[in-house]
């Protein structure tokens, strides 16, 4: 069973969380100024790395806060977890 370290609740079962996807996809400040390619890139394209991946999770069956997790997609090891919104050191 994969455990995720919630900064508020400690290590909890991943079934308590809702996956929020790639944390690297940032909504553009001014969508009207984008070309179709730039908008499609934001909406559809992903780095999809095999290895460390920054992603969002909501502790929906716990404290209901959003967290940002750096997790290895090959080994499922959690490298770092922090409250969402707090910028990662990397």
């Amino acid at each position, binding site marked *: *069973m*994969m455990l995720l370290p919630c900064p508020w609740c400690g290590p909890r079962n*991943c*079934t308590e969380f809702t*996956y929020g*996807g*790639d944390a690297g996809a940032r909504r553009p400040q001014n969508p009207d100024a984008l070309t*179709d*390619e730039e908008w*499609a*890139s934001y*909406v*559809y*394209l*992903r*780095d*999809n*790395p*095999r290895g460390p*991946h920054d*992603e969002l999770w909501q502790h929906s069956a716990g404290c209901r806060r959003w967290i940002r997790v750096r997790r290895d*997609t*090959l*080994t*499922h090891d959690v490298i770092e977890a922090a409250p969402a919104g707090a910028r990662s050191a990397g």
Partner: protein
Amino acid sequence: MRYSILTLARNALSYHENWPRAWRSPAPRPEYDVVIIGGGGHGLATAYYLARNHGITNVAVLEKGYLGGGNTGRNTTIVRSNYYLDANAHFYEHSLKLWEGLSADLNFNVMFSQRGVLNLAHSYADLDAYARRGNAMRLNGTDAELLTREEVQRMVPLLDCSETARYPVIGGLLQRRGGTARHDAVAWGYARGADARGVDIIQQCEVVGLRRSGNRIEGIETTRGHIRAKKIGLAVAGHSGHLAAMAGLRLPIETHVLQALVSEPVKPILDTVVTSGAVHFYVSQSDKGEIVMGGDLDGYNSYGQRSNLPPIEHVIQSLIALFPCFSRLRMLRTWGGVMDMSMDGSPVIGRTPVENLYVNCGWCYGGFKATPASGWCFAHTIANDAPHPLNAAYTLDRYTLGRTLDEKGGGPFPWVH
């Protein structure tokens, strides 16, 4: 060597100890006209149809492990063409037609068994949606039958269709021409057919880099040396994003793990494929007698080709709720495969912004049934630098152009498909 009753009889006389190898294991040559990366069903089918349909035989298939050791050997072998959108309906129907003649075409028994695929309706909304889908299928020339609860119960006596069932069954949509096939045999049959036409199948050869020069891929770095190719086709399923990144491309793909499991083998008891979209569950019985079942994705990005417990628990709960008689079956084996989940749930077969790089990906959890048509269309696209009419809608630029093919109307969330 052509397999026949005569070769079988001749080899029986020598106790089946003198069968020739079904394909060669050549060392890679320095250059090919076409290199296909990925020796699963799709890659091998592509090589086969390049040779068979287009006469292109200076081809290599590179496989990092062994043939069919990825998703080809990890899927649950279901074949169907019950799609709603026109582009998908025509593509998968062509695939099903190829399946119907595949064993004869390959001279290799892929054990295609048209035992039917039955989708259960658990609510009137389900039933309406299935009626709509079934009508669309019939308009596109595919077989579909809407069943009442009584007809479902007659067809699958083990299914709990009672009033008090946890998931009440009120009807179903049946595609009788759907069914199952032997997944390993599909890889082996295509490998043998491609090899016989001169294709080099190179196993234990992992691609570690793509050398890009301007808008072309000049060469492929592999664990067995440097290989040049005029054209390169990617058919690597869950690893599509990983390989595309080597060429400097990002794809509308996320890689997720999907699990399946089988029970101990039992005598023939379930003679069709039963699926439930509402419960996220499907089950069939293999020719070996195992009850084969699966459910939904784990739900987060993963390249880990292994299983995790929560989805297995869900699958078992669904099995017992729908088929109470299976409660005492013991589970034999679980495994996971990594899926190339596309952002609209439909595949990509086409050219890329890199001139001589072609991509075949985005199969989500439905790649196995597509194997013949995928190879057919990918070979056509590579040979002609233009898509076949059947994959004309499966372009990579459809996301930018707003022409996504979203069967469920779910929006750009790869893990919902």
